């Protein structure tokens, strides 16, 4: 059973609520060499008048076979209850993890050590959900057991498919 954060790309509007909630939860001091643990990427496609903009809220994916963990020469990265965590006391700031990470997630603070999303593990252990999913206004970010969330996503897709067929009849 893997609990994780899932992003419904259709629902993300790039409102930054998750980004700020993460800073508030983790006391990140933005603007003082402090990297963000969660970020918004805006992908623009097409040309006027046929434009599509996609927003992506990104943080650590907490991979099951985490390349960062396998690469870290200092043993600073570990997996605990499915969550990839960094022990900053052990981190030597060698950037191996950043080279290994397929998502470009690792960031380094002014102390040169790696930091990233810890899935709000203390909150999760206390039965709460991560700050970012808790705040999300559109329900784009979700926290839960992966297969359950995929089931929900599938159901939503089916709903949309059915609705669009009904609609085309109405439009007829």
């Amino acid at each position, binding site marked *: 059973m893997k609990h994780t954060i899932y992003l419904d790309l259709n*629902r993300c*509007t790039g409102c930054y609520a998750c980004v700020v909630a993460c800073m508030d939860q983790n006391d990140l001091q933005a*603007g003082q060499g402090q990297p963000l643990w969660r970020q918004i990427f805006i992908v623009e496609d097409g040309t006027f*008048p046929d434009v599509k903009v996609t927003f992506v809220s990104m943080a650590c994916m907490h991979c099951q076979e985490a390349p960062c963990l396998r690469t870290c020469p200092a043993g600073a990265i570990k997996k605990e209850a499915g969550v990839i965590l960094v022990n900053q006391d052990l981190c030597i700031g060698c950037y191996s993890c950043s080279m290994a990470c397929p998502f470009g997630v690792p960031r380094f603070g002014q102390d040169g050590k790696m930091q990233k999303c810890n899935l709000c593990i203390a*909150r999760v252990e206390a039965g709460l959900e991560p700050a970012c999913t*808790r705040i999300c206004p559109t329900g784009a970010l979700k926290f839960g057991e992966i297969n359950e969330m995929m089931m929900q996503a599938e159901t939503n897709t089916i709903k949309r498919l059915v609705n669009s067929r009904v609609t085309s009849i109405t439009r007829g």
Partner: protein
Amino acid sequence: MRDNNLLRGKIPCADTGIEIKKSICTICDPQSQCGVDVYVKDGFIIKVEGTKENPHNRGTLCAKGSAIRQYIYHKERIKTPLKRIGSRGAGEFEAISWDEALNTIATTLTHIKEKFGPEAVVFYAGYAKWERPFLHRLAHAFGSPNYCSESSTCAQAVNMAWKLLFGAPARPDIKNARCLLVWSCNPFYSNTSLAHSIIDARERGLKIIVVDPRYTPMVAWSDIHLQLKPGTDGALALAMANVIITEELYDRDFIHNYTYGFEEYREYVKEFTPERAELITGIPADNIRMAARLYATLKPAAFMTGQASVVHHTNGVNNYRAALALIALTGNYDVFGGNLVMPTSYLYIPAGFMTREHEYYQVKPWEEMPPRIGQDKFPVWCELVDEGQSMHLPFQIELGKPYPLKAMLAFGLNYRMWPDPDFFLKNLQKLDFIVDVDLFLTDSAKYADIVLPACSSLERSELRCYIENFVIYTQPAIAPLYESRPDVDIIFDLAKRLELDDPLLAAGYEASLDWILAPSGIKLEELKKHPAGMPVPEPLKIYEKKYIHKGFPTPSGKVEFKSLLLEKYNSFFRYDVLPIYRPPKYSPEATPELAKNYPFILNTGSRLPMFIHSRTFRLSWTRNLRPEPAADINPGDARRLGITQGDIIRLATPKGAITVKANITKIVQPGVIHMYHAYPEADVNTLLEADYLDPVSGYPGYKAILCNIEKV
């Protein structure tokens, strides 16, 4: 180790001593007021999140609300009352006591009243909005008609358009709608508590048409995007009406039984074929037809307005009348799933109960007071809105007519709200006495003689209600920081020191609220037992088509395609009685010569998700997401002008120029520049003339002027 983890994770429990207090965020106001769970340890706020029990935000918050901790603990908060010792604007102040500050204010205002009359004192409400009924009453109890607010550029012109046409505004009933026409509104950034319900409805099969010059997240959820050129809303609306009338898709019964002036309107609408509208708006004629058919045939259809986007034009009210006329044409007014008339409960929000808010603030009828600011210039505003028109304020100070203004008691004044802010500032300084109440020593507060420190919503008690028939009376999550006080405490204290003969102002805030709430049967005593808020007991049932029995509160008693109120003033003011389309005063259509040198349309004042006006500018969490003033430019335009991302560009109008960074983005259409407002270092409002106003509402034409850009 375990406790350490709990503390680091800010887990509320006995071990950590972290408690959750219930409050609300009022950083944006007044449609949201999201419930906030405030994590407090040893009297300090360490984290916030949305309140799950609050049916409006359902546990969510936006980027601004999530940053409220930085707002509250910001090092620039004013700690004590201040008295100016340097020149106006220099920012040199000395700390004084509350007693000295309030006594000075009371004495000076009383003196001005005796010498020049009470009307010489302006009572002004910027942000926040919670203190408004009390400040409004204070103004009238003092004898001044001049209660003014930032509503002079916000949502009141939209209400004017509603009232001119229907007599009363009506809200979109999205839950029951099959089609939603969104006319320039992006709640995903401006009112995120609405986001969930729109997406849920969309996934349920709601059809969405969005009118917007930009590609916004709202557009991403639309079936049809009508991407018009800024300022051409009226032409688009009239062309949609043309299609609906020509193809006989309109509601004949509704038109026949409940409307006035349809024949003249129909004649006028004939001029606006979709092909002609395509030339004006840039939207393909077939898309206009498709949208008109969809809105007219997929019933019920709701219409969602923005607060200010369409009315920030020199023809704003008439453009919006043209758009709202589509609701009349299709009979979607006051029906479930269309737009429903819901009586306002308190502070602009309908919440299923009646109050005496209006009776509370309007202690004196307008006729018994001297004319309001702007009354001779914007008479229709004064007929429809219970305040002065603040856009005229600098002009009245300058002219001294019909009477001189001498003092201002302001809450949250921001002079950058006015077009040509320097003109406003020049005249503001002619006042003998200025008081400003704020959390921060803003650039506007620096011009005040006395500055008073207010506190945030998390440090006070206030009454708010929600459209979901929910009501809350908050308790402070923490005590007011430093010597700051809630705005209303200042108002009620001043009322005493001014020795006004007003029993409710003498009785205080809570007694006033109980008086206001009396018709609802809701008492503060009961509300205090529910710190996270409570459902309104036995909420009023909303019925549709109330007009069948009650008619419409317009001069004719009908829906007015032809406004009798505008006709009343049109001999002198030359108002258009029909919703006539006129291009923006400065536009390629109206001023082609000017457009040769200023070939771009400049649209200002849109929302970025992390800012509402300048309110979260100083917070590093939000500011660092978009640190510098930047104008949005279409990639094609940028390429043509040799501008690349992040280049410094000069943005110029005939009035002036500012220097900003270029942000190249496809959300903007070619030929249009979007610049965000309120930056001290690049104030886009300085590019407008002070009288670039809609003659009906007095609203500034922020959303369409001509400009040029060049790489510096």
